[in-house]
């Protein structure tokens, strides 16, 4: 009975995603999804995995007990369609709907790839979409984690900012004590993040990523050379301005910048659900073993 309930909820979430966006490769539609009667998760029955809270004015930004500007609570990303593709993408491809991305610099809204890197990204989305990291339940890298499907919860205990994601039920812990990055000898899916408050802006510097994550579902890949500086500026109690500077001289001709906003989720009784990804992952069944999936033969 319990499993049935979870599956019913799944069907609802999946159906709502389908209605809005059509089938999306590597998305969550068939993954196991918990759910409670109380409130609703960022991806609950009512809101769907790609829900964005509308911009509504809030109260002045408060302070945590240790004096940080208070950003605690549940947030949903407003980054246009960056969750599907981070750059402007006027034509639909591989089930990814056309739309705007979140790149504000360069002005054309496109990633300033070097030619060989552009070719690699193109090949990934046209021929190797089974490599999409979220289809494999990998945790998202940075800055993808900032516009993650289902949104996330921010928690600010003394000396830290934590981002708790419903997707794959993970966390990102950012220390604020001025420590240096870990040695470049260690690479991580999430990278190594260190943060500091610069007035009313949280600045997070991230290095040590492993190059196994993408910016989106559209083949925009990363390398271990990526360096990201994110800036979270709470505007009021309901809105946070976000921007991230992305540098990687190995694949880009220049640094580039994405920008978006986070909107506080309207459901004040929210509790983070458990999106148990590996445990119910059906995505890889659609791909053959040679493609990194589980199917014996190609069914598509």
């Amino acid at each position, binding site marked *: 009975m319990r499993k049935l309930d979870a599956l019913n909820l799944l069907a609802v979430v999946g159906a709502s995603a389908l209605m809005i966006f059509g089938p999306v490769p590597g998305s969550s539609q068939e993954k196991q999804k918990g759910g409670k009667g109380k409130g609703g998760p960022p991806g609950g029955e009512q809101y769907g995995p790609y829900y964005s809270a509308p911009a509504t004015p809030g109260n002045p930004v408060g302070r945590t*007990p240790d004096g940080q500007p208070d950003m605690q609570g549940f947030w949903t990303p407003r980054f246009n369609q960056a969750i599907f593709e981070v750059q402007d993408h006027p034509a639909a491809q591989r089930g990814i709907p056309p739309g705007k991305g979140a790149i504000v610099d360069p002005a054309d809204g496109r990633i300033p790839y070097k030619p060989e890197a552009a070719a690699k990204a193109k090949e990934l989305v046209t021929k190797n979409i089974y490599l999409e990291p979220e289809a494999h339940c990998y945790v998202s890298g940075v800055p993808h984690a900032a516009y993650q499907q289902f949104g996330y919860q921010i928690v600010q205990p003394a000396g830290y900012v934590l981002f708790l994601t419903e997707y794959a039920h993970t966390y990102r812990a950012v220390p604020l004590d001025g420590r240096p990055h870990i040695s470049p000898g260690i690479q991580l899916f*999430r990278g190594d993040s260190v943060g500091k408050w610069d007035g009313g802006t949280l600045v997070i510097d991230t290095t040590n990523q492993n190059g196994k994550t993408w910016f989106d579902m559209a083949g925009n890949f990363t390398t271990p050379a990526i360096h990201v500086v994110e800036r979270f500026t709470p505007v009021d109690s309901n809105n946070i301005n976000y921007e991230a500077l992305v540098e990687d001289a190995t694949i880009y001709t220049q640094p580039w910048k994405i920008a978006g906003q986070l909107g506080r989720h309207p459901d004040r009784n929210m509790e983070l659900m458990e999106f148990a990804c590996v445990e119910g992952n059906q995505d890889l069944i659609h791909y053959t073993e040679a493609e*990194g999936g589980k199917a014996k033969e190609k069914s598509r």
Partner: protein
Amino acid sequence: MNMRYRVAVVFSVILAIGAVPLAAQSYKAPRTAEGHPDLQGIWQVMNTAAVSLEDHIALLDMPAGRSVIVDPPDGKIPYLPAAAQKQKENFKNRAKADLLNQCYIPGVPRVMYLPFPMQIVQTPKYVLIASEFGHALRTIYMDGSKHPGDVDFWIGDSRGHWEGETLVVDVANLNPETWFDRSGNFHSDALHIVERITRTEPDLLTYEATLEDAKVFTRPWTIRMFLYRHREPNFKLLEYECNAYLEDAAKESR
């Protein structure tokens, strides 16, 4: 032995016996801004409970270790007869049947004694426990709220409160498919856990969990162990993205 010496010996024995619990109780943890005991930091066990909660001999890649079960006093899990049989089968089939080998979320209490560090942070509403294993996350709600209805989670649902120096956590809504350890010790969907976490010294947490499950055990039973603070400068959680390594290993073996 003269009388005075004998009295002195008896007296010092009493002192020595009394001193242990006395010392444990006299430590008062520093407080958070809200006035609760501060359990924050990065902690890890130094035991082999992840191999087996009971006494166990060594096997390949599984070190020997002593039982962490303090009640019942024989240190054994009080299985019902059919469940004892099931545990034996689990042990035999452990390579395939232990879902941790497929990188599933470990469940409670297993996540607490895996050989990975975990970070505890506290806010007025929550105590969070973040494990390095698979980025597993426990949210312990401290707002007096109740467990949700008929739904289960791999990591369960945790609601806590403070009893003096001790964080008491009630854990329910647990997925029945997780195990307690690599030896096939298991439970059903009826598992209910009460954890007691106390900072008994500056760099030591005493972790205790009482487990009841009338479908599998004849009586409630209790485990107890220490969690040690990582004191290395700038220590932080890295990551163990189990499912990614599993895929890599499968590719290498093809």
